[in-house]
């Protein structure tokens, strides 16, 4: 295994060498940074050309310049890498270090959302194979496959951001919109649960009524102008989450699991009050960490008190529940900053931003207001990126689960008399996840590609913008820096995918059979 990793890392260096040599030379040969000067009418034209030639060492042939660049980069191994300077005399490395976190932030959140939603929908679609839900998911996935991201981004700007901001003026939802939204929700859930006609109608009307009432309350109280959840709503949500996750993981027949789940939900919601103190402290980041540690402590305690046997799965279940509760508390905290945020002069009741990665604040603002600002700026680009990448997860997880369900061990599991839930969640789902992990990792590379366009549309200053700038301004050092980073990421992602595969599926031996 170690030998294999070392061999692959060796290959990585070789590949990076080859591809960077190739890209460097093709860009160097095909561009002429002097072109602009040659056609200029400046009196000291000759001098300018001479200066630029000396600065960029254009007197040397491209391959030689590549090796000069490479010598600097190879400094990595002796601890002082030199990626060269940009055309504006900034070290390339500082530019990249500044831009990387912004791209990572975007890609990370979008990937997580895409994975969770995509796998969820894909698996539901597979379990309802050949139903209307399945067909509509297939169509939906193909539609997403065919959407150009830049087009979606502009639509999102208009229909999500601008329209939502306009809506915020009154914050009241019109009756037709309530009915429309509730009908859609009703159809969605009825399609998922399906069954006899009576059952479908029942679910549809149930969801429709609940949804309409919910939306009417939101509209009547102008909730969006002053959104809060508070401990009561969090408690109710927590109980729901605890039931839901317990149902999916160990089943509601397991009484002690249900009890410990409820314990975690109740105690977790009570943690809301100490959490406020932690989050309002001078060091909110430490507070946040402490809060999650406390919550996980609650989960462990709950599992240990109520269960004697088979604690592993129950601990896992409870940890997932409390983490979600923790996220709810954080969202509530952000909501508390909503009012001061939208009332500030910079925002002026138009909170969903269509441009930039954060508001440039003129004065110091509290941590949570700043966080809210970043979150609101992330909404649109994240949705755009998620939309284009989660179609792949829908199709792939659907296909894989259907394949797995045809295996003999699933038949065995059913023959043993296991419940359908156990068969699907324990036997089928886990094996479905093996191939999915590999596309998860490689998908990150293509999401980075999508991020380049997304950053451009939404005016983020990340790797994509840097890349664009490098190309347009003939900035070879910057271009090579960006490409080197992205391709290292791509190769590492591939390596990690291969390793993960062998860890998850012991039948596969990496590096064997050479």
């Amino acid at each position: 295994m170690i030998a294999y990793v070392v061999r692959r890392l060796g290959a990585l260096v070789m590949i990076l060498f080859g591809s960077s040599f190739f890209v460097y030379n093709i860009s160097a040969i095909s561009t002429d940074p002097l072109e602009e000067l040659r056609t200029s009418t400046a009196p000291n034209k000759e001098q300018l050309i001479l200066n630029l030639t000396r600065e960029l060492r254009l007197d040397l042939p491209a391959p030689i310049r590549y090796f000069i660049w490479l010598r600097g980069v190879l400094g990595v191994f002796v601890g002082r890498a030199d990626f060269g300077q940009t055309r504006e005399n900034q070290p390339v490395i500082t530019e990249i270090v500044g831009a990387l976190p912004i791209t990572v932030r975007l890609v990370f959140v979008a990937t997580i959302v895409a994975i969770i939603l995509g796998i969820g929908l894909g698996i539901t679609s597979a379990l309802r194979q050949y139903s209307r839900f399945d067909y509509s998911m297939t169509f939906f996935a193909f539609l997403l496959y065919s959407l150009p991201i830049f087009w979606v981004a502009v639509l999102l700007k208009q229909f999500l951001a601008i329209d939502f901001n306009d809506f915020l003026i009154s914050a009241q939802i019109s009756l037709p919109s309530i009915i429309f939204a509730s009908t859609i929700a009703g159809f969605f859930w009825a399609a998922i649960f399906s069954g006899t006609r009576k059952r479908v109608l029942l679910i549809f009307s149930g969801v429709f009524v609940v949804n309409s009432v919910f939306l009417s309350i939101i509209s009547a109280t102008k909730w969006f102008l002053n959104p809060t959840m508070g401990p009561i709503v969090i408690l109710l949500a927590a109980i729901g989450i605890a039931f839901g996750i317990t149902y999916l993981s160990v089943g509601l027949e397991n009484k002690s699991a249900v009890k410990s789940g409820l314990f975690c939900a109740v105690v977790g919601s009570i943690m809301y009050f100490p959490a406020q103190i932690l989050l309002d402290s001078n060091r909110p980041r430490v507070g946040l960490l402490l809060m999650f540690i406390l919550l996980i402590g609650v989960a462990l305690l709950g599992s240990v008190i109520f269960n004697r046997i088979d604690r592993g799965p129950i601990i896992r279940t409870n940890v997932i529940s409390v983490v979600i509760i923790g996220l709810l508390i954080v969202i509530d905290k952000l909501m508390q900053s909503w009012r001061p945020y939208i009332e500030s002069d910079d925002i002026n009741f138009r909170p969903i931003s269509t441009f930039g990665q954060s508001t440039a604040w003129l004065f110091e603002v509290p941590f949570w207001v700043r966080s809210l600002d970043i979150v609101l700026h992330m909404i649109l680009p994240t949705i755009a990126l998620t939309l284009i990448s989660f179609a792949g997860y829908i199709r792939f997880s659907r296909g894989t689960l259907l394949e797995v369900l045809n295996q003999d061990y699933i038949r065995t599991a059913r023959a043993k008399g296991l419940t359908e839930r156990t068969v699907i969640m324990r036997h089928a789902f886990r094996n479905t996840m093996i191939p999915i992990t590999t596309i998860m990792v490689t998908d990150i590379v293509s999401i980075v590609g999508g991020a380049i366009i997304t950053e451009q549309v939404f005016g983020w200053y990340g790797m994509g913008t840097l890349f664009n700038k490098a190309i347009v301004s003939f900035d070879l050092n910057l271009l090579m820096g960006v490409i080197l980073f992205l391709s290292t990421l791509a190769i590492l992602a591939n390596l990690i995918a291969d390793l993960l595969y062998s860890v998850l599926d012991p039948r596969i031996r990496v590096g064997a059979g050479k």
Partner: protein
Amino acid sequence: MARKSNIGLNTGEELLDGNENAIFNKETEGLSQGQIILKRFVRHRAAMVALVFFTTLVAIVYTALDWRIGDPRNPRFTIPGWWNYGFEDTPELLTEGCPEGILGCPTIDFVPFVDGDGVQLGQHPFGQDNIGRDYFALVMRGAQRSILVMFIIGLIATTIGTIVGALAGFFRGWTDAVLMRLVDFIITIPVIIIGSVIGFHFGNKGAAFLALLLGLFSWTGLSRLVRGEFLSLREREFVDAARVAGATNRRIIFKHILPNAIGVIIVSVTLLMSGAILLETALSFLGFGVTSPDVSLGLLISNYQDAFTTRPWLFWYPGLFIIAIALCVNFIGDGLRDAFDPRQRRRLSKKDKENAREMQSRSEMA
């Protein structure tokens, strides 16, 4: 639950389970492999609709504008298109029927979807751009470019990908090692990045040339798939049989293995092509693809993305064309995959089940 029907909730279904094979076997009796595949494809409703729609779309798009053979300024001869305007013509901006202060709005009427008094195309169905060019003609031209780019990328990537994959998979050893390192080498750089570098430097040399270069970098995924397929197929008995019979390597590759791998190739090529059209439009959007004065759907969107609030049609139509083309190709690909997959079975209709039950009872009586 999809599987429940097979566990046996009612006996009718259970009896049917054994007979499914019989039904399918009867259907394919006496047909060649190609005929079976064609039959399966024709039965895939979405794919057929997509195929018909796509063919019509291509026909409309490519006949709309004049074809000028030779120098575009001073053509040797011209094949006239059915549409009144060329994409370079600049007729007068019309204000007729437009909202206050807006020029060149679309004249298309299509009850009840667009506007609302009758069905007509009007003088400028998709409106006009800033300088009065007919937007329908522009969109047609853009779609022509995009479809051309898609096919060129598809063609080149298929050729290179198949050959590289076939050689690597068939010969293994050092051929495989060298070729696959070459693949690694290209795959490390996100394709949009290679595309941008190429497009920025060579975009002005025309869409076809750009597509040619992009095709040179888009075959890697396909070659990996083909290699995998070849690695497994070359161990099969029919290959041994061919070799014993004295077939050359070339004959084995092209006559024996390749036809067996064609399903995988075709399916992945359709995906590649729908990816290619998105790549081209994305590059043009970023300004690294087709450049003005030529037109591409991505370029149109890029030019008019800020006009969305005042003149949304300038934004809608090119986008809808991209989606329509990509969606059609995806659905055709889906149909092909189902058709080529021998394990794929359509859902039995009620009629099939009745027939089966009849068969069952008849055999029981006998």
